[in-house]
């Protein structure tokens, strides 16, 4: 077995996006020995790509806003599959977390009277997103990164975690990883572990996600015995770039629509008026005139249908293209050029301007963008306790995108950045509590380390086997074609059969070269997570025989009220197989139930 170095901490946090950084800050501020372990350089995690803003009912633009309205919007946007307690905590605590960022140096855009400006986004009743132009994620990650550095958190950069480690009593007690730069292995022994590894999008061909989004945290937690829920609920963001092919999937912020942009088909029609679902009819404008007035007067007009929740907009675009009313590259047109001045567009959407100009040769102040759905976010994930983010395995906590519950079946734009802050902090607190309450040094079982290292080493011992790149591309093609935005039983069954074959091919993956910064080998170590997560998504999608939020079944096009009361829980069975079963959602107290029923206008 190869040698490895070993470090001991009270708390280790895996993943250095918004949730991981926030968790590490919390544990470190408590005076605990804290380490942050991340696959990329610090400050490069996927949070950096978030554009539009962080939703928090601060009421700076619309004093009518408050946590109850934010709670209601979040629950309705999630088609009521949300964990009500998480939605409540999130709505209540998000404003404090934003002001905290300001105390740590973040420079948000301002209102005329000097407070934090808030922007409109889909599914939010009021302008609610604290933002910095269209680079809010960068501001957030830099602020948190600089705070973590000021607190002297130990950071292990470009360090990929392979497996979680448990002790003889079944408590999570650390993790085994390798340094990308040297290929050397490193063991972390820790009293508590926070997983904050983000998304899974790299299993699809067209995604807004970076290479890091391979579902490592989902897979590691499952392998360690944790429950995952509702993995079928995946968000296809309605507006990704579609051309050139090499940039297909790259995100176009919802801020374009929040700031006045509209969607048109090849006939020039604002088609979203044809797709207003009954659930949102009462709060959505039914004429262009009303929709246009809304930007200035939210109280007496209803929201434009372009700002329906993302699942609705993505499905509508899909239908328009299928009906033959799409653009030349299979998308539809997002037009802000004809609606706002060039100066306004450049000021409000500088990154979008830059991105289209440089990558597609399109001037968004003069012509429309062609856009289409792109795999963006997973609402499902590790099952956690709402208040503590504790998973079902002692010593293991999860926060951010890798955790499930807050967003239900569909996430509203802007709720992700605030999710990272609210639950990153809570996970850090609870992990610190757990570490403080745990006596003795963490002592992971040696067998776990040996197995992880021998799995990681295996591709070097094979010759002429499968290329990890080929296997990855096959996986992406399978998931894109068979477990995409619209699903059906026969295709999901086919996907699971193909995943069996891909699992088999994975046992034959071979890599060339050494362990030092070898991307082929790195990909080979990401593949087990990607394959695991893909199977969880396909199984969940097969089992949930209804359409709800980010999960759309062609063969079950309606929401089933009974299935709206359950999470589909998956875990590892005793024989290593995945089991799946429905379990009831936590029951919402009547006073919160009433908030959902009230009409606020």
């Amino acid at each position, binding site marked *: 077995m190869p040698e490895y170095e070993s470090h001991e901490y009270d708390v280790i946090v895996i993943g250095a996006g918004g949730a991981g950084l926030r968790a590490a800050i919390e544990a470190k501020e408590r005076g605990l020995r804290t380490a942050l372990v991340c696959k990329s350089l610090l400050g*490069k995690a996927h949070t950096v790509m978030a554009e539009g803003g962080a939703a928090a009912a601060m009421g700076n633009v619309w004093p009518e806003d408050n946590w109850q309205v934010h709670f209601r919007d979040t629950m309705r946007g999630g088609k009521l599959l949300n964990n009500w307690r998480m939605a409540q905590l999130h709505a209540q605590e998000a404003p404090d977390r934003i002001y905290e960022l300001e105390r740590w140096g973040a420079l948000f855009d301002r209102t005329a009277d000097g407070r934090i400006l808030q922007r409109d986004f889909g599914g939010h009743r009021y302008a609610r997103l604290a933002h910095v132009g269209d680079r809010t994620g960068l501001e957030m990650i830099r602020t948190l990164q600089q705070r973590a550095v000021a607190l002297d958190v130990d950071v292990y950069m470009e360090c990929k975690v392979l497996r979680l480690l448990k002790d003889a009593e079944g408590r999570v007690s650390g993790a085994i990883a390798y340094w990308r730069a040297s290929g050397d292995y490193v063991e972390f022994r820790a009293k508590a572990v926070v997983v904050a590894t983000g998304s899974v999008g790299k299993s699809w061909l067209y995604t807004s996600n970076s290479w890091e989004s391979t579902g490592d945290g989902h897979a590691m937690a499952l392998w360690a015995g944790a429950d995952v829920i509702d993995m079928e609920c995946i968000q296809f963001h309605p507006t990704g770039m579609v051309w050139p092919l090499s940039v297909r999937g790259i995100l176009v912020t919802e801020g374009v629509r929040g700031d006045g942009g509209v969607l048109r088909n090849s006939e020039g029609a604002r088609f979203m008026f044809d797709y207003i679902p009954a659930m949102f009819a009462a709060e959505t404008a039914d004429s262009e005139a009303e929709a246009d007035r809304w930007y200035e007067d939210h109280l007496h007009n209803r929201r434009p249908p372009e700002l329906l929740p993302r699942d609705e907009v993505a499905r509508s675009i899909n239908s328009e293209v299928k009906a033959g009313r799409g653009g030349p590259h299979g998308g539809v047109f997002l037009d802000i050029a004809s609606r706002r001045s060039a100066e306004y567009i450049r000021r409000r959407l500088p990154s979008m301007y830059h991105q289209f100009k440089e990558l597609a040769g399109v001037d968004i102040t003069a012509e429309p963008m062609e856009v289409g759905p792109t795999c963006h976010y997973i609402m499902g994930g590790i099952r956690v306790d709402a208040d503590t983010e504790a998973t079902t395995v002692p010593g293991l906590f999860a926060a951010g995108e890798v955790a499930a519950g807050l967003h239900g079946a569909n996430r509203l734009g802007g709720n992700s950045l605030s999710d990272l802050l609210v639950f990153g902090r809570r996970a850090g607190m609870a992990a610190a509590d757990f570490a403080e309450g745990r006596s003795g040094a963490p002592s992971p079982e040696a067998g776990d380390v040996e197995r992880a290292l021998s799995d990681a080493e295996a591709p070097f011992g094979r010759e002429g086997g499968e290329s990890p790149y080929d296997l990855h591309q096959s996986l992406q093609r399978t998931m894109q074609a068979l477990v995409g935005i619209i699903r059906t039983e026969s295709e999901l069954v086919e996907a699971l059969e193909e995943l069996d074959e891909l699992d088999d091919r994975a046992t034959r993956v071979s890599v060339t070269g050494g362990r030092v910064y070898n991307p082929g080998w790195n990909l080979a170590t990401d593949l087990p997570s990607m394959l695991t997560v893909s199977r969880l998504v396909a199984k969940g999608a097969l089992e949930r025989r209804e359409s709800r939020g980010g999960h759309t079944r062609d063969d079950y096009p309606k929401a089933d009220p009974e299935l709206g009361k359950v999470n589909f829980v998956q875990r590892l069975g005793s024989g290593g197989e995945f089991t799946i079963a429905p379990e009831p959602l936590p029951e919402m107290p009547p006073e919160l139930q009433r908030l959902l029923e009230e009409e606020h206008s």
Partner: protein
Amino acid sequence: MSELTMRVWRGDPEGGAFTDYPMPAVEGEVVLDVIHRIQAGPAPDLACRWNCKAGKCGSCSAEINGVPRLMCMTRMDELPTEEPVVVAPMRTFPVIRDLVTDVSFNYEVARRIPPFTPGPPPPGGYRMKQQDVERGQEFRKCIECFMCQDVCHVIRDHEENKTAFAGPRFFIRLMELDSHPLDEEDRREFTRHDAGLGYCNITKCCTEVCPEHIRITDNGIIPMKERVIDTAYDPVVWLGRKIVRRGARRPASTAGTAGEQPAAEESATA
């Protein structure tokens, strides 16, 4: 389909050489796409860093035909393809493998900078004017691609200067903190002595390569030099300007003894 040749540096700290990879040309691609196709084909172990592939994370910096650029934002169709497209790692930092360099120098400098230190919030919270946050926002656009550091002569040609010189990325960080409406720390002596601002002779190479078009020299380094020089030679003049501009700030050495008046209030009512 037409062909192009990618001439990519392959090697490690012991040394290396350029290798030519003939590849089919594909419409609309950027340099990083072609690198990825080389990885998926002839060179599966070709090392490069990347993350967002949209110019937002600053991971994929390299020297393309001799110029530091983001591989994800450099379109192939803007490069002359009758000649090989030359892709090399950033020269200022030690090579780890192929296109990947050891940029830890930058993270070490970041740890030395005295952190953001706000005054206590006034009742009702901080207020800042948009025009006052915009100064700092320009610098906070920085995606830490470190290409300004790569191209800076002070460290590109003089490894030994790295201990005494923070580099353009951190001069704009210092300027950002200095112009932050809420910050009360005085970093002028740090900027002069520890960060070595005086080494910079304003050749503007950093500004030229910045993918975010931050005016590093004009808006960052030159104003910072003026502030530092004012301090070094005439602190009374500097303090006078500072008070007129934004209210009193305390020097780091006397933290906690002055500056009771929140800086934000004056800027919010100015």
